[in-house]
């Protein structure tokens, strides 16, 4: 800042003094509360930690710099003399060339802020470092409150100071619902004992659903999802890591261990499967697979994502701000940001690797409890095989063989050309022979391709016609005919070579063809035109081609057939095809005889005939189907018996060099850096420790670390009280919120560490306070005085988070399947959402909804596709899981009302809840009471009950007058309709249940 000019406005200073005297004169100005945030927000942008944007070589974030005498003899701050302090002169100047911040800067100082700065200087300009960067020290309980519960001591002392009276305790039913939702994300079951809250809390902490509830918030931080994100957004397999998180909370793994395992479990001595599995935390970032993407660009992106996520989750540090330049507000340099990146930069990983279920490094784990399923499936296969063999043994093979011989010798059926082998131009493509002689196309799915199929003929025949069939398969788009976006294919050419000579083909007949794409487009010379079928077909498609000249095919000769897909209709490739040879004049839909059967008939020996009979006889079809189904089940069970998870694993040998990236760009490497922790926390790594992730993790949970425990405890507070003591859980820096109760936060952080980072003990401590148990009732005076409830004279009500809303509806209706863990599930979702945005080459083009139990699992297990997350969650402010999220705003919108009123999930829950109430209580009054109690864990007040009774009468009258409407009203969802219930009655009660599920009380944590 240049020398103060004579134009300094004395009136400006006087004005500030005047304000200082009224607002701040009475008591000392709290530097951390009123001064530092102003310096940070209004001054640091040009006079802060970022050296590159620093003006006039002046920084205001360090005490020494602020106090340093200036070369021209002036002083920024003269303690006790605001008028002589350059800082005050400049901020109060009315000269546009002098005033700070300068007129073209977006931010201005408010009069209150001017007054605070002035009063602070006038009172002696005492400096304090940023609160969150000071070591945690346990403060004494406030005087006069020493004998209270520690939470209440701090909260009530502040209330007393503010002259507010805390609310009385809420009633037992409310407390029970509050505690159950907070700790398990589920409403209390009605057999719960109401007598002792503390016992009840212990019971909730012991519930396996506790881990599920705790996991949700952690998954938001960990940006967990079941798809890779970015352009392709293919499915990924990380659910076993998600289950590990649930298990870790359920066995109350101390937070320091929880930290070390997730950041560096693989580096622990004798790291076993669990230690490695837990490091999945830092592989939950998105993975790109866009064609043309540059590997290094995205590899770097993943490394930096790990830094940002780790810094936010453990330190409330907005490290990402230091990617392109030094942090503007917090004392984190760009160099230090990349020194942190060096911890995460040593994996054997690629940037463009988001195609398969996992990208290396990954591990394969066996899935507990699957051994029995595999054994059962094996024995089922054995039984099915024996049954089929036995049936084949009892057949009269001579008669059957004679019949087949005749069938073959007369005009004959289509002779299926098999066994066929095929190759694509892309070597990653696979062709699996199927039992019916067809080939199933899998693996790499290039845009255009030529599939070359080959077959050696064992017995000769005359080839007049060739039939090509496209068969639907579950592995193809929406169970259709191809792996293209809509399941259509387009065949641009068909070559047949026999005895090395190309045969001329004529298009004859096809069962299907799209407009302007008839069959002869496959036989014309133009590769850009093709025989195309409409999208979405799930039936067998047949086409017959005639040979211009019939060919006598000799036994032992080779037939080569090329299916050309060159019309630039990308991925319009038949997914499962079968080829058959036919005699002249054979009808397109005549039956077919496998080549193997023809072969067996020619050989004529008993063994060949029996095998052919077993595999082809129509009367054995059910037994064959049973065997094939058993085999498929076995294959599924074997597949489900293992799962893969991406993990952290160091590269062998010399660690990869890490450089500062200029402007944060992957292709602009600057100075090389070694792994290290930021200096501003005053806690260097031990000299003797290797600079690896394990050292970093241990550093984070060092009791001298100022941030980790504060950040963790603040999140637990947020979970129970609706907002953190620090209201910006993602930012404990200069720009973040100040704690509403700084001493309480420190007391809790100290307690947390001293009690061994015991999460359950901390939750129990918080929940056994009077503060937690207060009634939420707010008088207008309280709202006026403390609208945000910062002082906690009352409990904070807040709308339930997205997953809890759905889980609650499932739980109260009795639909909920409480089983823990396992692969993600696909419950109800409005049709067309994935399809509408789907693109080339993704395996998440079509949403195929699950059934039965998978519709009713907890929301934690709902498949999370990043580019189209579940809409009934996103409308309720769920985090998108693309990047780390420590808190979400809570909104209240009309679209939310449409979800809980109309979404099949909720509508079905209402109907099932109605059925439950009808079955569980006898008369209307008892049923209304029961309904209310199930949903809100309390009996209805007389007025409430009267209201529902009146509504019931009106709705009953409606459905009695129109029983057809009643039938349609209760026909919702896939859960069976109880036959013993009268649809009219059930429909009316469904309306009541809908009302209950949509009450503000129901949607809100009480």
């Amino acid at each position, binding site marked *: 800042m240049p020398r103060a000019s004579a134009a300094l406005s004395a009136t400006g200073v006087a004005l500030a003094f005047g304000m200082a005297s009224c607002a701040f004169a009475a008591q000392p100005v709290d530097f951390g509360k009123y001064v530092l945030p102003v310096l940070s927000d209004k001054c640091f942008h040009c006079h802060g930690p970022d050296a590159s944007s620093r003006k006039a070589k002046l920084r205001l974030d360090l005490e020494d710099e602020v106090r340093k005498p200036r070369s021209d003899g002036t002083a920024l701050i003269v303690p006790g003399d605001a008028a002589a302090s350059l800082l005050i002169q400049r901020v109060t100047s009315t000269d546009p060339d002098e005033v700070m911040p300068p007129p073209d800067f*977006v931010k201005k100082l408010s009069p209150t802020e001017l007054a605070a700065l002035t009063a602070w200087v006038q009172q002696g300009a005492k400096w304090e470092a940023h609160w969150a960067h000071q070591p945690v020290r346990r403060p004494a309980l406030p005087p006069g409150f020493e004998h209270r519960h520690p939470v209440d001591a701090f909260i009530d002392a502040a209330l007393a100071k503010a002259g507010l009276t805390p609310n009385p305790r809420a009633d037992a039913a409310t407390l029970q619902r509050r505690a159950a939702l907070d700790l398990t994300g589920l409403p209390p079951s009605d057999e719960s004992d109401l007598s002792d809250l503390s016992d009840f809390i212990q019971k909730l902490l012991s519930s396996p659903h506790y881990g599920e509830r705790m996991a949700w918030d952690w998954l938001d931080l960990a940006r967990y999802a079941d798809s890779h994100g*970015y352009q392709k*957004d293919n499915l990924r397999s990380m659910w076993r890591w998600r289950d590990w998180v649930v298990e870790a909370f359920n066995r109350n793994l101390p937070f320091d261990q929880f930290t070390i395992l997730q950041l560096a479990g693989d580096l622990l001595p004798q790291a076993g499967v669990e230690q490695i599995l837990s490091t999945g935390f830092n592989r939950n970032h*998105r993975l790109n697979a866009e*064609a*043309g*993407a*540059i*590997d290094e660009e995205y590899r770097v*992106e993943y490394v930096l994502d790990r830094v940002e996520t780790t810094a*936010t989750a453990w330190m409330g540090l907005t490290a990402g*701000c230091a990617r392109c330049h030094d942090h*503007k*507000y917090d004392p984190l340099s760009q160099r230090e940001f990349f020194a942190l990146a060096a911890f995460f930069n040593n994996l054997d990983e690629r940037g463009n690797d988001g195609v398969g279920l996992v990208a290396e490094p990954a591990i394969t784990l066996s899935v507990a409890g699957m051994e029995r399923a595999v054994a059962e499936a094996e024995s089922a296969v054995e039984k099915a095989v024996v049954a089929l063999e036995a049936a084949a043994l009892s057949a009269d093979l001579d008669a059957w063989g004679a019949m087949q011989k005749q069938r073959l010798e007369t005009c004959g059926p289509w002779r299926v050309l098999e066994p066929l082998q095929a190759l694509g131009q892309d070597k990653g493509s696979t062709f699996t022979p199927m039992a019916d002689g067809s080939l199933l196309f899998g693996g790499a799915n290039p845009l255009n391709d030529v599939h070359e199929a080959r077959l050696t003929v064992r017995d000769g025949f005359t080839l007049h016609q060739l039939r090509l069939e496209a068969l639907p398969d579950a592995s193809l788009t929406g169970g259709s005919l191809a792996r293209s976006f809509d399941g259509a294919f387009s065949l641009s050419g068909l070559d047949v070579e026999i005895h090395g000579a190309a045969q001329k083909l004529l298009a004859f007949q096809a069962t299907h063809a799209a407009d302007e794409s008839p069959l002869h487009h496959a036989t014309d010379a133009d590769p*850009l035109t093709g025989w195309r079928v409409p999208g979405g077909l799930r039936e067998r498609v047949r086409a017959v081609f005639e040979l211009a000249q019939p060919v006598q095919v000799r036994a032992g000769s080779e037939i080569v057939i090329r299916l050309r897909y060159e019309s*630039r209709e990308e*991925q319009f490739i038949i997914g499962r095809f079968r080829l058959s040879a036919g005699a002249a004049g054979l009808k397109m839909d005549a039956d077919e005889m496998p080549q193997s059967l023809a072969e067996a008939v020619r050989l004529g020996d008993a063994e060949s005939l029996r095998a052919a009979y077993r595999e082809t006889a129509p009367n054995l079809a059910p037994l064959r189907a049973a065997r094939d189904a058993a085999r498929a089940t076995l294959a599924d069970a074997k597949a489900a018996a293992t799962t893969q998870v991406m993990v952290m694993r160091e590269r062998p040998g010399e660690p990869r060099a890490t450089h500062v990236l200029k402007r944060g760009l992957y*292709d602009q490497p600057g100075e090389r850096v070694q792994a290290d922790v930021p200096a501003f926390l005053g806690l260097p790594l031990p000299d003797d420790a290797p600079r690896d992730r394990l050292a970093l993790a241990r550093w984070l949970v060092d009791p001298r670390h100022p941030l980790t425990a504060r950040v963790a405890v603040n999140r637990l507070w947020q979970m129970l009280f609706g907002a953190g003591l620090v209201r910006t859980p993602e930012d404990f820096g*200069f*720009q*973040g919120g100040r704690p509403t109760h700084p001493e309480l936060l420190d007391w809790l952080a100290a307690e947390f560490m001293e009690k061994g980072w015991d999460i359950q003990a901390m939750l129990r401590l918080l929940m056994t306070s009077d503060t937690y148990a207060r009634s*939420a009732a707010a008088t207008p005076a309280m709202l006026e005085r403390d*609208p945000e*409830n910062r002082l906690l004279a009352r409990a904070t009500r807040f709308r339930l988070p997205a997953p809890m809303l759905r889980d609650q509806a499932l739980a109260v209706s009795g639909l909920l399947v409480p089983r823990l863990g396992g692969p993600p599930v696909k419950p109800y979702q409005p*049709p*067309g959402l994935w399809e*509408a945005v*789907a693109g*080339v080459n*993704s395996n998440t083009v079509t949403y195929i909804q699950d059934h039965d139990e998978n519709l009713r699992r907890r929301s934690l297990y709902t498949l999370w596709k990043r*580019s189209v997350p579940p*809409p009934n969650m996103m*409308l*309720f402010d769920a985090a*998108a899981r*693309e990047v780390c999220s420590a808190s*979400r*705003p809570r909104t*209240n*919108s*009309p*679209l939310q*009302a*449409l979800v809980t*009123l*109309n*979404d099949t999930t909720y*509508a079905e829950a209402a109907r099932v809840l109605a059925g439950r109430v009808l079955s569980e209580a006898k008369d209307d009054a008892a049923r209304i009471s029961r309904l209310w109690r199930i949903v809100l864990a309390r009996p209805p007040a007389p007025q409430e009950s009267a*209201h529902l009774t009146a509504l019931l009468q009106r*709705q009953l009258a*409606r459905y009695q007058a129109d029983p057809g409407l009643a*039938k349609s*009203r209760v026909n919702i969802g896939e859960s069976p309709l109880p036959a013993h219930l009268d649809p009219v009655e059930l429909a009316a009660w469904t*309306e009541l249940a*809908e*009302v209950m599920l949509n009450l*503000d*009380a129901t*949607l*809100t944590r009480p």
Partner: protein
Amino acid sequence: MNSALHRRVFLQQTAGLGIGATALQTLLHGEQHGEQASSLSLHHPPKAKRIIYLCQSGAPSQMDLFDPKPAMAKRFNENLPESIRKGQRLTTMTSGQTRFPVAPSIFSFSRHGRSGMEISELLPHTGSIADRICLIRSMHTEAINHDPAITFLQTGFEQAGRPSLGAWLSYGLGSVNADLPAFVVMLSRGSGRPNCQPLYDRLWGSGFLPSRHQGVKFLATGDPVLFLQNPPGSSLEARRENLDSIAALNHLEHERLGDPETLTRIAQYEMAFRMQTSVPEVTDLSDEPESTFHLYGEKARQRGTYAANCLLARRLIEKGVRFVQLYHMGWDQHNALPKQIRGQCHDTDQPSAALVKDLHQRGLLEDTLVIWAGEFGRTIYSQGELTADNYGRDHHPRCFSLWLAGAGIKPGHIHGSTDDFCYNIEADPVHIHDLNATLLHLLGLDHERLTWRHQGRDFRLTDVHGHLVKGIMS
């Protein structure tokens, strides 16, 4: 409850859905989990009150549509000179090519209107509105792949997590219709390349802004808005009774606990009920005269087409929706460009031009801004085989074209130019941040002052960049 508080509650209930956000923001400042104040009011008088954004996903080829390069004809199949490429990075789809053969456009250009704007034969209808649009030929962007590039175009940042343009506007401006969302999104699939680049919900997401600012999809199948229809058998009358009961019981709850959010919820349920009527009304095209379908084309009768979405966009802004965002997929012509681009142009040319004409006829173009834009451009060199009548083009972020029309935009004007190879910008470069800054400016918002505090930083749509493009403003 005193009147001031009551007013705040009322405003919270209607936040973004009925009241210009101006007064609201002051009152909501500092709410615990509600809104942060975006700005105290509009920063200056707006030229535009609403936007229709016609996003052409996949990156349309500028030299085949808007930026004629006749000099290329003589250079057919010549290798792109290094003096032009200057070592700039390529995608890994073509970085391995041994040659970069120049592929001149096979489409002819002609001059249109009094302005004489040159536009490709592929876009005759766009040619007919040449005197109403401003064509920018000097756009440039950062990313070279679709996902980060379209994310950048729509959110001002390559990586996920930031609010979209529409979300910023919903937050900054609110809505003028209580019964419709402030920000509507519609998708269509191109017939030129149906198997195309995907889209992502984040493109119209709210990022770190509250979720009610996210774009509301008007869908091509099923309910026009998610969960709009009552469950089967749930009649309007039965629902009305339920809503009355919910409101009555919620009032009892409010008497007991005094939570202002309870009153908000009552209001939101009423609004939801009104939307159940207003959305089907606005999406029902049966009241449109035949002349509408002459203008937009017969495809406009078919739900989910680009043409139908253009027509619906006009109907929505007539009802007060602030921001209508269309996405038309399929512009990624890596091969068979001549074949595919014809299909894309057939889908979009007439309806886009019809929309501008329609708005003009209705007097709405004066304060409505229309933007036609993709996420980047394409290369002059052919990706894959080059023949006399076939070529493909790879991604090119160094230059591309887009057009704007309407409020505050200079009509019949061309801004910026590129070199003969359509590879580098020669004059007046416009970055995405500049475009976004200008869009906000036209809406009365200063892009440096429309901010949201997140992770300690005041985030902006334009990050720390963006300059107004004065040359395109009237």
